[in-house]
Structure formats: C-alpha cells, structure tokens
C-alpha cells in the first residue's frame, strides 16, 4: 500500500487533544479520604434509613388468617376442577387485641400459585382488554376460544384462573349478630391500568358489547356480571379483575382485596429496614477497619517511598 509515501502534504497529524490523547480529564483515584468518607457517609445513610424503616414498620400491624384448612371442605370441593361453580361458604372468627388505626387493608394471599410462568404471563390479549378488538384472542392459548369456536372474553389463562373467593369482614361486638364492615373496593388498582390498559368495549349495554364472546371456562358469571351492586364495576373494568390481571412476580403473593380508609402512610416492610440497618452497620465496620489498615500502612508506605 503505497499511501505511506504519497499524499505528502498535511501528513502531520492534528495537534488536537483528542488525537494526542491529551484530553483534559479527571483521574479517578481511590484516595483514603475519599473512600473512607464515602464509606462513613454511606454507613450513616443506611443506618438512618434502616432505623426509620424499622420504626415505621413497627407501627404496622398484620394479621394473617389462613383458611385453607379451616375451610377444608371448600378446599376439597375445589380440588375437583369441575366443581368450580358450586358455592361453598365458611366463616373464621378472629380477635383483635388492639384497635387498628389509620389505613386498614385486606389482602388475599396465595401460596405456590405460579402467576409468573412464562406461558401463563403471556396468555392474555391486551388489545381485547383494551376493548378495541374483542375477537383478538391470538395470544391467549390455551384459553382463547371455547369448544364451539366462540372467542373467550376475557381470554387467556390469567383471566380464567381469577381469584373469585368472596371475603366479607364482619364485626361481632358482643352478640351473635354480625355487623358487616363496609370495605371500599375502589382505588385498589393503578390509575394507568384502570384508565389506559383496561377499557370496556364501547356500547350502551355491557351485555350487548360482549355479544359474540363467551365467558372463560372456569368462570361462573360472564364478565359483565361480575359486580351486581355496582354496574360501573363490571366488564374489564372490574377492580378485582384488574388486580388479578397484574401478574405477581413470585409464586407466593398477596393482592389487595379491599381497603378501609384512605390516609397516606408509610408501609415499608420490616426486611428492608433490617437490610438497611445491617448494611449501614457493616459499612461502618468496614470503614473503620479500612481506616485502621490504612493508617497502619501509611507509615510503611512512606518508608517504602523513602527507600
């Protein structure tokens, strides 16, 4: 390649900082002051956050009632999937030792329910849930169409496996007459879910809007009859439905069922607080030991340099 000997003019490379690798730059160095102060600061921060979290977590009271065994007969009934439409009720009394102040939330919690399976998560049709194209059930296998070929609405495995237990909280003051605690079923979903992601098909009457579709095989009622009390809470816009459709990340999960009040409150869990505290403590410990080592070595380093 003869270009070495040709183009003899202007072959002197540019004297730019970039080309001469002389760009002004900050040279990162792990200096003792920088590292140690960083560690102390991180330690302080973590400890602080951790303590705040622990304190705030302490004010949260949690009661977990497992009813799988207590309502054993119902569980047994449900083991046979064909009995999905048979009603079964049971009641569990529990006692609150102190009053719960502030917000009260009621969750249902499932153990070992794999909402995060690859095929399960994909088995839904966003365009159907958006109400634009009820017949779009392409991604809903294996629950896309009924045996006779009618598209299912809402289609897919997630919708089909909806948690449909009804939980009623009653208050037994002293007698045997239970007073039902009024729980709010609204405000348990994300705003974007309720107003962007889920929309009912446009029609005056919900039942006509869903004409030409059929209910999921495991459902007792069609989607437009989910809430008989509140006509707005039907179709794809049913809050329980939306909550269920937001698939959980882990096989053990809890989902918000009802709420009692609406005052903002800090609800971080206890483990995070503990983790922060531990991290902060460890960081402090580390920074102290590092400082010790550093100070010890400082003399040695100076000696080495002077050699």
């Amino acid at each position: 390649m003869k270009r070495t000997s040709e183009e003899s003019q202007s072959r002197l490379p540019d004297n730019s900082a970039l080309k001469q690798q002389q760009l002004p730059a900050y040279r990162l160095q792990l200096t003792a002051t920088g590292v140690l102060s960083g560690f102390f600061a991180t330690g302080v921060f973590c400890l602080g956050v951790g303590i705040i979290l622990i304190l705030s977590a302490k004010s949260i009271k949690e009661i977990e009632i497992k009813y799988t065994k207590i309502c054993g007969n119902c569980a047994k009934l449900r083991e046979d999937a064909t009995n999905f439409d048979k009603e079964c009720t049971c009641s569990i009394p529990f006692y609150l030792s102190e009053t719960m102040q502030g917000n009260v939330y009621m969750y249902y919690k499932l153990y070992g329910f794999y909402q995060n399976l690859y095929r399960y998560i994909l088995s839904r049709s966003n365009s159907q849930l958006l109400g634009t194209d009820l017949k779009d059930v392409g991604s809903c296998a294996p629950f896309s169409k009924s045996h006779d070929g009618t598209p299912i609405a809402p289609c897919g495995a997630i919708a089909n496996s909806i948690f449909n237990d009804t939980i009623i909280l009653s208050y037994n003051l002293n007698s045997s007459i239970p007073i039902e605690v009024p729980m709010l079923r609204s405000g348990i979903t994300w705003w974007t879910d309720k107003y962007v992601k889920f929309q009912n098909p446009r029609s005056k009457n919900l039942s006509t809007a869903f004409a030409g579709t059929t209910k999921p095989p495991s459902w007792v009622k069609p989607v437009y009859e989910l809430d008989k009390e509140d006509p707005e809470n039907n179709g794809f816009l049913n809050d329980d439905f939306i909550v269920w459709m937001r698939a959980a990340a882990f096989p053990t999960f809890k989902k918000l069922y009802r709420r009692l009040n609406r005052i903002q409150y800090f609800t971080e869990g206890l483990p995070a607080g503990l983790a922060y505290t531990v991290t902060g403590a460890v960081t402090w410990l580390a920074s102290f030991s590092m400082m010790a080592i550093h100070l010890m070595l400082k003399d040695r380093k100076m000696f080495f340099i002077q050699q």
Partner: protein
Amino acid sequence: MTVPKEMPEKWARAGAPPSWSRKKPSWGTEEERRARANDREYNEKFQYASNCIKTSKYNILTFLPVNLFEQFQEVANTYFLFLLILQLIPQVSSLSWFTTIVPLVLVLAVTAVKDATDDYFRHKSDNQVNNRQSQVLIRGSLQQEPWMNVCVGDIIKLENNQFVAADLLLLSSSEPHGLCYIETAELDGETNMKVRQAIPVTSELGDISRLAKFDGEVVCEPPNNKLDRFSGTLYWKESKFPLSNQNMLLRGCVLRNTEWCFGLVVFAGPDTKLMQNSGRTKFKRTSIDRLMNTLVLWIFGFLVCMGVILAIGNAIWEHEVGTRFQAYLPWDEAVDSAFFSGFLSFWSYIIILNTVVPISLYVSVEVIRLGHSYFINWDKKMFCAKKRTPAEARTTTLSEELGQVEYVFSDKTGTLTQNIMVFSKCSVSGRSYGDVFDVLGHKAELGERPEPVDFSFNPLADKKFVFWDPSLLEAVKTGDPHAHEFFRLLSLCHTVMSEEKNEGELYYKAQSPDEGALVTAARNFGFVFRSRTPKTITVHEMGTAVTYQLLAILDFNNIRKRMSVIVRNPEGRIRLYCKGADTILLDRLHPSPQELLSTTTDHLNEYAGEGLRTLVLAYKDLDEEYYGGWAQRRLQASLAQDSREDRLASVYEEVESDMVLLGATAIEDKLQQGVPETIALLTLANIKIWVLTGDKQETAVNIGYSCKMLTDDMTEVFIVTGHTVLEVREELRKAREKMLDSPHAVGNGFTCPEKRSSAKLPSALEAVAGEYALVISGHSLAHALEADMELEFLETACACRAVICCRVTPLQKAQVVELVKKHKKAVTLAIGDGANDVSMIKTAHIGVGISGQEGIQAVLASDYSFSQFKFLQRLLLVHGRWSYLRMCKFLCYFFYKNFAFTMVHFWFGFFCGFSAQTVYDQYFITLYNIVYTSLPVLAMGVFDQDVPEQRSMEYPKLYEPGQLNLLFNKREFFICIAQGIYTSVLTFFIPYGVFAEATRDDGSQLADYQSFAVTVATSLVIVVSVQIGLDTGYWTAINHFFIWGSLAVYFAILFAMHSNGLFDMFPNQFRFVGNAQNTLAQPTVWLTITLTTAVCVMPVVAFRFLKLSLKPGLSDTVRYSQLVRKKQKAQHRCLRRVGRTSSRRSGYAFSHQEGFGELIMSGKNMRLSSLALAGFATRSSSSWLESLRRRKSDSAGSPSAGPDKPLKG
C-alpha cells in the same frame, strides 16, 4: 559465458526450441516456462499471469455474499444465527426474535463496513502499483504502458533509478559488455550494488530496431521463490545460450548507475520472485484473542451447565408442582411429559442465557482496537518531520499485544543504523582529530557546536560533507606531510569509481558506503580523486592534478581484512598504500616508531569504545627492483592452476609487511536517532532485543557496541562461528558452562553440571547473574537451528542479555523468530526495513516496518510502520501499554456486566417454575448490551489511562504486567465472573426480599412481575454504571457524556416504552404500559435500588482500596508518589552512562564484496573512452565475474548461493 558442452537430452534437438506447444494447465503444475520475445500471440497460448497484481478480496457484486460467508465462518456469528433459528421455534422461543437479530445485524454491519473500507484501500494501492508507467517495445517503438499491461515476452526499457517492473532477462544496457548495476534492497535487504550482465549475444542489441527484430525464446524453470537461482536457456538464431541468475533483473530491484537497459519479461505479476516470496499473509491473532476464544468456550460450557440444571429443575417442577397447576395452565399440545417439558426448557434457557456469551464482545474489541490504531496514526510524537511520515497501524487487530512484547528482533541496516557512513574522526601520526564535542554526536546539541569546518577553499568539495574539527584542515593547509600522505592514501587506496557529469561535479560510485565516506573525506580535505583508468589514478592534490600509475590492487577479502594499492607517483617512486583492520595491520608494521604505535592504538581503542568503525592506514616504499621481482612472482601466482588463491595471498602477504604507520580513521555507522536510548529503555522494560542482520560479524558487533547493546562491562561476549555441527554444539556448551560456572551465577543446587537435564536447564540459566552476550554467525546458526540443537541454542541465547545474529538469511531470521515464538510462549516483535526482513516481520507476532525508505516491502508486510527505530519505545511503552491495560479492563468489565445481567434469570428460574421466564422486559434484553451499557465501556476501552504517558517512559517497569499477562488472565476472568454473579445475586434477591413483603404506599401490591422487572433492570443499570465509573480511571468529557448519557437514555427509553401512546398503537407489543411511572414513583423501589447499589459497590471499593494499601502495583505507586520518580530517574541516568573503558575491536567494516579490484584492473567496468587510454592486456572475458561470484559465495558460506550450475536435465 559459454554454452555448456553437454546439452540436456530434452533440448537435444539443436537450434530451435522443441516445438511442442502446451497449454498451460491449471495453476501450480506449470513445468517449464517458454516466452518468445516480441511475440505476444505466441505467448498468449500459455495464459501466463499478467503483470497485474491483485491483493483485494471483493468487488462490488461479490462483496455481500462473500463477506457474509466469511463472517458466518466466525464461530460466534454462527452461534447467534443458530440462536436465531432456535427462537423461531414457538415451543422453545422464550424471547422475541428481535432480541437476537438486532445485535446480530448490528455486529455484521459494523464488520462489513470495516472489511469494505480495508478492501477499498487495497483496491487503491493495487491500482496505484498496476498503473506505474513503463516503456514497452511494441511493434518496433517504445510506448508508455502501465505496469499491468506488461506481458510475458515483452521487451521493456528501464532507466536509471527505476523499479524493475517484472522479472526480466537482461538483454542489453548502456554500460559496456551489457553490464548493469542493481540495488536489491527490496529483495534481500543488501544495500550494496550488484552487477548483472547480459549474455554476450544480446548485449549488442542496443538500439530499438534491432531489439524489435529479436525473436529469441526463453525456456526456463516455472515460477518459484528462490531469489538467488535461475536456470533457463535462450534459443536464438539456431543456437542455445544458458541463462543464470546473473542475467536476471528481478521485480523490486532498482536500476542504479546505469542509464538504461532492456529486458525481456520472463515472469510477470504474481509469478515474479518477489511476489512468490511475499507469501500468504497469515492472519495474526493476539494472545488475548486466543484467551477470549477459550473463555467463550468455557462460558458456553457454563451456559450448557446452567441450561441442564434449569432443565432438570423444570422437569422436577412439572412433575411435582406443575401437575397441580395444570387446571390453570394445561401443558402445550406438543408437551406430553415432564421430561419433554424439561428438554424444551433447556433450549429456552439457552436462548435466555445466551447473553453470557456476549455477541457484541468481538465487535466491541475490534472497535477498541481500531480506536487504538487511530491513536497510533494520529500520534504527533511518532511523526518523522524529516521524512514526513506518520506512524501507521496497518493492522488494527493487534494493538493490545503491543503491551506484552518480550522479545524484539531487529534488523540492523536501515533500522538501527541509517546506512550512512560518516568520516567522524581520524588519527594522523599520533594526533587525534575530530574529537571536539560530545561523543554521541546528538543533533540536539547542534546549538552548542561551533560552525562546521569550511571547505570553501576547495571547489571540488562535497557540500554535504561535514567535519567539526578545524585543526585537521589547518594541518593539511600548513602542509603537514603526514596529513598529506594520510589523505593521499585515502584518495588512492580504494575501488571507488568516479563520474564527472559536468566540470567539477564529481559523483563517486562506491561499493560500500565506508569507502565512499573515506574517499569523500579525502576529497574535501584537498585530495580529490578525480578519475581512474585501469592503469592510472588522477588525483587533484591541493588543486594540482597528479596522475599516479596504478601498478597493482591487492584486493580486499575477508581473511586478509585489508586492501592495498601499489602506485608509482609522477616522480617515479613506487609506494604501497594499505588500509585494513587494526588487528591485522598493526602486526605488519615496521616496529620502529613504538611511541606512534602506542598512541595510535590508544586512539583506536577510544574510537572503538565509541562504536566507530576503525581502519589503520599504512604505507611502504618499494624500490623498483623489488617491485619488478614481486610483480613477476604475482603474475606467476595468478597464472597458477592449483591453489591460485593461496599463492596470491602469500605473495600479497610478502609485500604488505614492515609498513610505516600513517594513522587511523574512524567511521561512524550513523545510528538512527535515539537508538541507544531506546534500546536502554526497552531493556529496562525487560524486553530482550536480538539483532538479526545479514551484515558481517564485525559490523554487527560494532553496532552492538555503539547502540549499547554490548558494553565493556559485560562479563563475556560469546562468539559462535563454528562451521560444523560439532563445533557449534561445543561452542554453545562452553558458553553455557561459563555462564553457570562464573562466580556471578546464582547456584541453585547446580554444583553438578553432569546432572543437568535439558528440561532443568532453562530455569537454571534464567538465574544467571552476569551479563553475557551471544554473537552467532549465519553458518553456525544454520546448525544451531536444527531440530536437535535448537533448544540448546535457545537456552543459551535467552540467558544472554543481548543476542546478535550476523550473516543470516531472511529465512533464518524467520526461523529464529519462530523458535522463540514456539518455545518461549512470549510475544515477539520483529522490526526491519528491507525486503529481507519480510519473512521475520510476517513470522513474529507483531511486525514493524520502517517506513520512509525507498523500499516498501517491509512496510507492506508489517503490522505497524513508522520511520524511526526510536518510535518503538513509544509504540510499546505508551501505546502498547495503554492498549493492553484498556483491553484488559474492558474485557473484565464486559464479562462482569454480562454475567451480572444474565445470571439474574438463573436465580429467577427457581421462583418461576423453571419456565424460562425472563426477569426483564424483552426490550431491555435487546438494548442492554447494545445501548445501555456499550458506550461507557467502549469509552473506557478507548480512552482510559492509568498513568500519564511521560510516566510510562520514565518507569519502563510499568510495562511488566503486560509481559507477565497479569491484567487479564484466567484468574482475573474468574474474579470478574464471581463479581458478576455476586452482583446478580444481590440485584435479584434484594428486590425479592423487599417485594415479598412490601406494598405500595397506597396499600396495593408491589410484587407484581412488571414492577419487579423494572426494579431489577433499573438497579442493574445503575450498579453497572457505578461500576464502570469506578473502572474508568481517566474521566474525559466523553466518558462523562457516555456514562451519564447511557443512564439518561435508559430512563428515556424506559418511559417511552411504558408510555400510553405506544401502548395505544401496539397493545400486544408494549405490555408494560404505565409501569415506569407507577413503579419508579415508589420510594420503596428507590430505597431498594439504592440498597442494591450500595451493597454491590461497597465491597468492590473496599477490596480495591485495601489492595491499593496492602499490595500496590507499580502504577499505583507511580500515581501516588513523586519521590519514587526522582529515585528511578537517577537510576536511569546511571544505566545510560557510556562505559569509556573499551576493548580493542577490529573494525574493518567494508561491507562491499571483494573482487572489485580485479574488475577495475581489467577495465571491464569502464567506458570505452577511458579504456582507450590504457593499453592493457585483455583477460579472458568472464573470469573476473566468475571469480567475483565464487568469492562472494565463499564468503557467504552457504553453498546454495553458489554459481549457477551448468544446465542439466
């Protein structure tokens, strides 16, 4: 030359060549070549290669298919193609097809663009060479044709200083007897001129009309790569003439001192010996490349292991848990058992986890190397202002290997030296001249020097000659008889030819630059050698012309190491002038002036100590009677049939005795600028430098001293010159014994030499403490490189501080490099300037060519080129070191970030029923490697610096980590992987722990899959960004821009992907609608991200800080301390100091061939005009040439270089 008597049977039918015509079959089976002059039609039958050279690979049409085909031969690319196909299977696909195809297309495109640019430049250079003009004789007239149109059988005309266009048979030339001088530097690196001669019958074809009628046919051997051999026959006018290499002009040679010549093209283009020799360029891979390939294989194995674990997990899960979940999600139709489900999930996981084998790795590495190459091209400090050549990285794939070089093999002539001889000092009758200022003669000190000596009194002086000591000229001017005799000798005793184009414009044709320098010195000091005939020499002595009768030239040869002339001055006195090596000449002096002898010897020692090439000058008066008798004896000896050489030698010996010492000269073989400093610095950087030169031992050793490779402080310099296997073995054994027995040696249980096994030897020899050097000559090297001795040789050589191989052939150069490469597992670098260095440049891991010379062969074969040897220190210590550092940091980080990214899926597998569910959004998976994390690490790989460049020159020891391969090796790789896995564990389990319990601040669930995905992805991006921030040692604006920019782009894309607009358009593609704003608005999520980052980064910082405190590397120390710098600088200066105590070294350093004396005396090389002046007896026409060649071959010592054998069947 005469036709051999016995003709081969094949060509027995006298006269015309055998008439069978044979189509040239496919390539490689050509048995003989026939070319008829001026008959293109006839020659076309054979379909010989045209003179067009093609090094390019593609044209516009073939580019895409051929390039893609080549790219898919890369294992990595095929692997991703395979992945792509896997993803198209719906049962297996766990990721959308675009997660693989986008990076793959990007990678292919980048590589294709690079290949296309490379090929474009190849096209350009091909065109340029192919379009060089040459004069071709077509239909009786000379026509300008580009080189590519020259065909076999054409007659072309060459003019002085032109490159030979193809391999030619020399037909005739402007010089008498069809002689022609060529320089073969391009071919074999020898810069002295060589003589070629046309065969007598064609040498008369001087004019075009006769040449146009020439219809001889050449039948010769097929194309081959033997530069020193050619055999063929010319059939013309019913007779046959044997052809040898002596009649050939090879492509790549340059015509010198010959006005014009005509040649018949025998081999063209790819068939020429030059191109046949250039060989196929081997694709060079760096050790990091090889390591990377191994690691990728390991990672692949690791990937399969993870796949198997997860597949087994899936099978078990489906069996134990999944069966109960089937009511909610029945198996796919294709799946009929848990086992099969596991099998499918294996492939799904291979797809998901494929990002541990990072597709962008290879392309990123190439981009970084390209950046480093550009830095080399752009480096102003490697730009040679004189030659206007910048450094050039011709290969862009080797840059980090420059930081690992352990052995440098250097050519001498043109690389270490400028091949310019400068008359620098002399000693005239006990007084030394020229020793004015500093020894090294640095240009830098020009300002301190006085004006050079003014030679304006002498109209014939050479303007370029520079001498610094005015006292010598004064001595000449005042008429000091010694000084006069001194320069008279220099102007008479030589074999230089002069040419005077115009009055006063003298040109000397010297066979060696040494002689040229001496004669030019005499010329400037007023003793101008003006002209010569076979019998006379005319010298202008201080302005008056004096003609000496030349009675005899007692020619130079390797054994005599001296040359003499016997002249009769106009007064009729006969005097013998002799110059020669001090060791030889000092013994032949008249012993009387002992004092003069001792002072001259002192001067010689002084000169030798400075690395100058010395000669001793002496004369002797002969009386007429004695000379008459001697001339008679000489004639008898020269006519003797047997042992003519010996007899002549003894006759010469007889007369060259009892001579009177005149003085001594010292010629500086001018080193390239800064060579000793560079060598000293590289030696400090633990780089071993071997000099491999075709030059003679004395010259090579001298250069060794002058560039401080050899010093007088050395314990011993071993010289191996044995001619037989046994001798060489013995010499090597002795050298080793000496090294081990010397008191310096550290005896590690080494008392019993018999016990040494060859396996233990190296380690023992490594410990040798004394400084030794090895000088080995070509013929010994030939034995030393044989299979049974090569290890012995290598051990010995590697224990020496310096190794000089002299008189080596290009092939041997390559063999030596190969030997070290094979057995030492070290990175080798070869640097040279000539075509004789091409083989070694190609063999070494890194080849460096010295550019800016006339020849470009070495540059073409090289990976890096620049015009000064001294730039090597910058190339290695600055660019190489940085490249290596950057590449290592890049690789560490790259593997780290991919493991941190990918392993999260593995952990998640245990929580999602091993269903090949990804943790992240698929867009994140697509973009993570190519958008979110690519540019910061690229910026680090291109721009990072640990210490400023001045420091790496000041502390050559900083180069050592590269040689020891410390920054990226298997251990470092596992550390990166471990760190990556650690990060993946934390980025998964911390959010897991938080999400399992926590709820959003409005009480609703936090632990939904999409929020989890966003949290993990965000914390991962932040963690790896902080990590790259820690790894980046040199934060330029670009690094800032890329790091902050990547983070910004991440959030921008995240919010865009999760926006309502995109969801409304493609509800099924963008499922994460609203996720970013809902999740990232949660303080819990941010606390999680902060916690993850802190926990991931803090231990790394702590570890690095402790390492810095407990075990700082040199670069760390350098950064910290200025005190150390001062100390080392002092050390440095110490090492550079020149040892003034010197040994005596003979420096008869004529690098020319012997035999020119005879040539001159025969008058063969003189124009007819000058010949007419002399009535001398003509001798047999070819004997001088014969003897010239014979001697040359003897001195070269290799039988293969012998004279052409007579033709045999």
